[in-house]
């Protein structure tokens, strides 16, 4: 899960060397699009008649497309006018965009549904579990998340390293000026990167919604922070790194949640799992800023 969101951060960072603060809102947007599609299907009475795999596909596809498009729009409105300016300026604008989107989403949902806490309608297929062995039962939900994450990683790896567009993206990431001299349409490539990053965020959002079934406009903040931690942990701008970071962080957090109170004799419980994640972030940034799999981050002027 973190790995998926982290991929979105890494995509954008890798190209622009810029932390897309509003990524967590794109992620939440995906979750909301997902729930809206499901609710619309439900009110049309189609949720139970259509084949569940088709429904899942539909939900994920719309979530990805809408999130991707809004990420592109965001880039157009909030970041492109600031290109070439100091890094802080774009960062602050991103924070602003993030806050604006949170409340914008809330406003929209309040007017539309009269509440901004939305429940995913339950889907039978997801609530089942597959038992692999006597005491090893995996819920379908989790399989879905893990499977999609792996597929996405492979797909993304192929996309970035094997296709023409991927080559263009990497060229812009290395040196935008030279890339543009070589005939790469830099702005379009950046917009495309935002689309891909946003779509990944949307995908993660839909999965998040399906998995936890309750979403609200502010639920992106903590996952967003952690995904960023995961991206940094694995080496930001590095796609397999983001994946590895996400998994490590997820494991660490799960262990912290279950063993922290045992280790400290009940003094510190599961409520400290967020603290653990942030401490990891701070420690990584201090001791190994380039991350576990990272190349050296270019030290450019702020």
């Amino acid at each position, binding site marked *: 899960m973190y790995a998926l969101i982290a991929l979105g951060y890494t995509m954008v960072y890798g190209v622009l060397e810029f932390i897309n603060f509003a990524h967590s809102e794109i992620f939440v947007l995906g979750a909301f699009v997902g729930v809206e599609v499901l609710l619309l299907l439900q009110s049309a009475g189609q949720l139970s008649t259509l084949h569940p795999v088709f429904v899942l596909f539909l939900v994920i596809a719309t979530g990805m497309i809408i999130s991707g498009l809004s990420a592109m729009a965001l880039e157009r409105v909030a970041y492109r006018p*600031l290109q070439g300016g100091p890094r802080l*300026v774009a960062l602050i*604008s991103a924070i602003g965009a993030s806050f604006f989107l949170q409340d914008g989403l*809330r406003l929209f949902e309040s007017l539309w549904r009269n509440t901004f806490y939305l429940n995913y309608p339950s889907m039978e297929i997801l609530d089942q579990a597959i038992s692999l062995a006597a005491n090893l039962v995996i819920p379908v939900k989790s399989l879905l998340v893990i499977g999609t994450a792996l597929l996405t990683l492979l797909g993304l790896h192929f996309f970035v390293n094997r296709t023409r567009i991927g080559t263009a993206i990497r060229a812009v990431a290395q040196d935008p000026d030279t890339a543009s001299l070589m005939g790469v349409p830099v702005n379009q490539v950046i917009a495309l990167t935002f689309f891909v990053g946003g779509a990944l965020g949307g995908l993660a959002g839909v999965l998040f919604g399906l998995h936890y079934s309750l979403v609200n406009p502010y639920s992106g*903040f903590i996952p967003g922070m952690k995904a*960023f931690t995961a991206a940094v942990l694995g080496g930001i701008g590095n796609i397999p790194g983001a994946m590895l970071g996400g998994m490590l962080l997820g494991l660490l957090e799960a262990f912290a949640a279950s063993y922290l109170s045992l280790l400290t004799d009940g003094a510190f419980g599961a*409520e400290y799992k*967020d603290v653990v994640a*942030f401490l990891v972030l*701070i420690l990584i940034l201090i001791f190994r800023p380039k991350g576990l799999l990272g190349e050296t981050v270019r030290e450019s002027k702020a």
Partner: protein
Amino acid sequence: MISSLAPLGLCAYIAASCLLAFYFPQSVLAFLLVEASLLLLYYVPATAKVKGFLGALVLLVLLPFLGSVNGYYLEVAIQIGIFVALALGLNIVVGFVGLLNLGFVAFYAIGAYLWAVFGSPQANAFISGGLFPLSPNWFFVFLLLSIVVGALTGVLLGLPVLRLRGDYLAIVTLGFAEVVRALVNNLDKPINFTNGPRGITPIEKPPLFFQPLLEFLGLQVTHAKLYPLYFYFLILSMVFIIIVVTRRLENSRVGRAWKAIREDEIAAAAMGVPVVRMKLLGFAVGASFASAVGVLFAAKQVFINPESFTFMESIGVLAMVILGGMGSVPGAILGATGVTILNLQLLKGLSLWLNGLRQSGAEFVIPLIGSYPLSQLPAQFEPAKYERMVFGLILMLMMIFRPQGILPPRQEPRK
């Protein structure tokens, strides 16, 4: 000719707006006009003496007087003061040194909890002897202590992270603020330090050391009326001290070093500016301001809990600094005042007005299209709840259209 007329006109304006606010104590608008007089004062061409006198008149005499007529005005003024002080602190970090600190609220929380824990029965939970709450006389000691503690935590956080690049620093400070909040939220066990999410109350108020003097003068003021006035003057003097300190720092060796770092770190280092030490100093100064304001906040609120110290607050203060103009003292003051008024008065006023419309059963008629009964306006549509949107818009629009803020620093930074 004009320059001699302007102060007179201003006096007339101040008098008129004060009269309005006095005779219409319910009106938000009238009070806004009074507040606007201070802004006008900044722009009007006049000698420093005249400006100083008029400013002091408004702040020291007229506002407290209006506040004693209508307590809500004073409450707003105190809130503005608190945010002005915070914005000035953040302005040093973001504006002078150029370090984006997204966890500024953490230092504010540290200050607030410092006094809250020891100025209430809370500390009895882990220090035996029933010494607590400390008597109000300790308030000023803790105010000083909070400056030290704030500076120390600033240095402690700064030491490891200040070598990071700007955007990483932003994330780490944000993470730090979340860690502080999580700690405060959860440190009610194993030992109850902070009482967790339930918060701490009652917190002692500052001492009324001047009460004998008032009695000597024959003034009988009830505590309910006295405390708001007292806090108003406390925060006013605090803001004044902060402004003086900031001004002195700005024009000193240290201030010049900060700006050099902001403009070009490598060049500054090459010129012999001790970059890390100067950054640490900036971090510590900002943190100590925030921490001291926190002590005052805790004493004013009597009750605090972790809810008051969310990421929202950090962003709010940042929006104030950005709106006013990074690196500009008048800008930070204007930004803080503007945003606070927007939050406390305009948005709330708008909400009330919409509620009124909803209940009046009026209809919003669009010619040719039809009418829309306002009573059906969704109850969720309440401007006061959308301050995040406002902050977000401020940050985004300012960055795109006017990154230097409304009142940019007078010395234009070199490009």
